[in-house]
């Protein structure tokens, strides 16, 4: 039996350490609410407790770590270059787009994981795998029905979008004020691109990356939302790999002495800290209405109550998606039409859930209501009478 060399395991520990440090602030509780997309998966997993629902987010986190290992091993096998493989894996872990996605319980992480298997597979099989997987991907997202190539091409290669604006098509998956990649990655990307096409011994890397990049680009061409993170993973992964190559060139170049390396590392650390602060402290505020914060508040409230029947207006009926899953055996919800609001909700023995614009029907203003369920930014969502 082959003896395991501890030196070979060190990169894995290093990648895992970076992963845990970047998540040390909060592993599963940001975003603070649960989206409707997540609800479907939670329902599929048959989870009925909110606490467990949050912990289900450990699954994408685990897949995320596994994907970074796949990238590491894939490039290590094909290039036999440890530093390069580490750089690529770390860029993936720390890129704002993948970081944000890995915090949500969606189908995205498995899709990226499966896409990254391309790098692990030996070359003839990998091309076939990529082709088949791309077709499946395109079919899943119905991305083959769009023809405005020009605007997509422009949006695709736009440096401002990649490094500053980020995903404005599905901004609820985006770290505020940050692009798909960190600011400091921009010059590194240019270095990586230059090295990839002009550097020595880059032919092997070109053979690996170019098909993946082309496939990602083709998929974006046929995409009606070229900026949506969940439709551009292939493309973003390719850019991330080029950035990884850029970091590799920077750290392995004889032109760069240890002082410059230290400065680069400090810059990366500062930028990383900035991104993490924005994610952990501001993501919920900027995406207040997207993640069902008020609904989770209501679930917590309702569980403590002894009342078992709530009247809910049609405009507030989206709350039922959450109550059906987390409060099924305990409480009963009756949807009422607009004309019945005054009669049912004026009765002080009934419990009614209303939106702000419906309060006038029962002769109340929002200041009269004591029990209010708020969005993450402090704006009221539901009122309980």
């Amino acid at each position, binding site marked *: 039996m082959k003896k395991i060399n501890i030196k070979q395991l060190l990169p894995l520990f290093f990648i895992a350490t970076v992963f845990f440090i970047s998540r040390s602030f909060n592993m599963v509780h940001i975003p603070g609410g649960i989206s409707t997309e997540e609800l479907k998966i939670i329902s599929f997993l048959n989870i009925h407790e909110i606490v467990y629902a949050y912990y289900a987010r450990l699954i994408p986190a685990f897949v995320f770590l596994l994907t970074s290992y796949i990238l590491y091993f894939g490039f290590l096998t094909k290039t036999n270059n440890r530093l390069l493989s580490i750089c690529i894996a770390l860029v993936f872990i720390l890129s704002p787009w993948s970081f944000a996605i890995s915090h949500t319980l969606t189908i995205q992480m498995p899709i990226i994981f499966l896409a990254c298997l391309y790098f692990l597979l030996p070359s003839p099989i990998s091309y076939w795998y990529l082709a088949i997987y791309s077709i499946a991907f395109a079919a899943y997202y119905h991305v083959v029905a769009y023809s405005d190539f020009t*605007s997509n091409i422009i949006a695709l290669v736009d*440096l401002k979008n990649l490094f500053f604006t980020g995903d404005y098509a599905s901004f609820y998956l985006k770290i505020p004020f940050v692009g798909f990649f960190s600011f400091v990655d921009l010059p590194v990307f240019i270095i990586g691109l230059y090295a990839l096409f002009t550097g020595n011994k880059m032919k092997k890397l070109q053979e690996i990356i170019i098909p993946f990049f082309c496939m990602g680009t083709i998929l974006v061409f046929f995409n009606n939302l070229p900026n949506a993170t969940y439709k551009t993973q292939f493309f973003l992964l390719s850019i991330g790999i080029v950035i990884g190559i850029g970091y590799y060139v920077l750290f392995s170049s004889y032109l760069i002495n240890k002082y410059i390396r230290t400065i680069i590392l400090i810059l990366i650390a500062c930028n990383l800290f900035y991104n993490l602060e924005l994610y952990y402290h501001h993501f919920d505020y900027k995406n207040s209405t997207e993640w069902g914060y008020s609904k989770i508040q209501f679930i917590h409230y309702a569980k403590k109550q002894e009342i078992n029947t709530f009247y809910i207006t049609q405009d507030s009926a989206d709350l039922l998606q959450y109550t059906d899953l987390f409060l099924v055996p305990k409480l009963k919800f009756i949807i009422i039409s607009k004309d019945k609001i005054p009669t049912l909700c004026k009765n002080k023995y009934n419990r009614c859930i209303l939106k702000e614009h419906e309060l006038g029907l029962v002769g109340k203003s929002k200041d009269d209501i004591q029990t209010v369920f708020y969005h993450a930014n402090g704006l009221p969502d539901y009122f309980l009478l």
Partner: protein
Amino acid sequence: MTKIKTVNLLLCTILLFAFLIRAFKIETIPGGIDWDEASFGYNAYSIAQTGMDEWGKFLPLSFQAFGDFKLPAFIYITSFFIRIFGLTVFSLRIVSALAGTLTVFFVYSIALIVFKDKRTALLSALFLALSPYGIFYSRLGLDISCIGMFIAGTVLYELKYIKDEKMLNLSISLLFLICCFFTYNVGRILAPFFLISIIAVSLHKKNTVHTVTVILLMIFMFGVGVYQLKNSYQSRMKYVGIFGTDKSMVLNINSLRYEDHNTFMSKLIHNKIVLLATTLTQKYVEHFSSNFLSSSNPPSAVQVSFHGPLFLIQLLFYYVGIVYLIATFLKEKNTTNKISFALLLFWMIISPFPSIITEGGISRRYIGALGTWEILCAFGVSTVFFTRKNRRYIWNTLFMVCALCYGGFAFQYLNFYFTKMPDFAYVYFKRQNDIAKYTAQEYANFDTIHVSRQITGEPHIFILFFLRFSPQKYIQTKNYTIENDWVLIHGFDKTHYPYIIDSKYLTTLKDDKKKSMMFLSEKEFMNLSQNDMNRFSYRKFDFSTVDNTSVYLITNK
């Protein structure tokens, strides 16, 4: 010999073509003049007639106009043409067309000096001749139209000075630089950087006289800059700059700190330095981003190009041009050539500065880069197609395909400009132009003329322009107030510009013997009483399909 003649012939054809595109139907497309064009034109007319501006100042260095203190170079140049052709839209805009054409020649010469390749130079000239930015700004009677020419002139003669060290070339370069400084705000931001580059070159040449001359000029420009800062520049920057308490950057900081409950750590992370660095970098990168370089939108505002500076097909060559220019600069052994490449790179690097320190992505602030886009594209094309020793069939075919695509894009742009642009005349104040033209036509037939400010902000300037009103008489008869540094003209001679024309205003015109003509908005007209209607005869003057409103013209019976 034959080859030289062919090149010259091609260059002349390109220049002629550039001029024709810029001058064709220049009076009618764009379909009107905006108030800045009218103000430039009238001030130039005033200078041509009296040597004074509209405020009676003799040969001023800064024209007060509406209180926005316009820079003088464009007005003085235009005054010569207005002196010859009279005050018309043509005489105002032809200056821009000529400046645009001259820029094409300058860009050709710059590319020829830097790359020493006639094909690259001709391509640069062709790209500029058909450049969406170049064409768009060369057809507006504005100061912006000349700034590209002055910047290109500065660079060209600096390059010549690098080659031959002649005082004449240095002087011409400095002359263009001074023109930059006195033409447009973009020039005022870029001029000091070019001056620094000239100082660096003269220091490198170890020529004390030249260095002292340039430094003296720098001191002069610094003095003028400080003087002007007190007047217009400061207030202008307060209005358009990214610095200030009510700017989006500061509002973002406040919002982030609020969300962090104003902790010390939050102040450490979310402060002006961090956000300024990211904002400036973002705006700088935007200048090189594909979305900015080649996206197009329907015309939405005067002075804002509806098309990016490059056609889509040029994008790739532009990026290739940048990469290979850097690579060529690094590899170059000859010092003079290296400095030439460095100057071109320097121009490319500094050109986004005026736009990054201001809010809003307004295309005219990118105008400093006009010339660099085209030269870099041409260099990219040369690198890809012309430098291969064994030119294969496939590369020739690819070149032909690209050339055809470029032709298609250019044709599409020109077709849009000359056939669809007239539909967007409302953007170019066509309504205000029509009111002013009608007023000029009927001026002698009425005793008083009233134009409501509900229709337009500064109606007087259009009437002054189309009436070719005597500058001396205007200075004597105008009635105005100044509010927040902005001059409000309430009337001159027999014209009046009230904030609103309503029943109350009409009752003040008791002297019915005076023959009056009034232009008012649809809303004002609808609010008039039946009594008012009986006193006046009225008709619809025009109808705008954009906002579905009309302007009404009423006269006494």
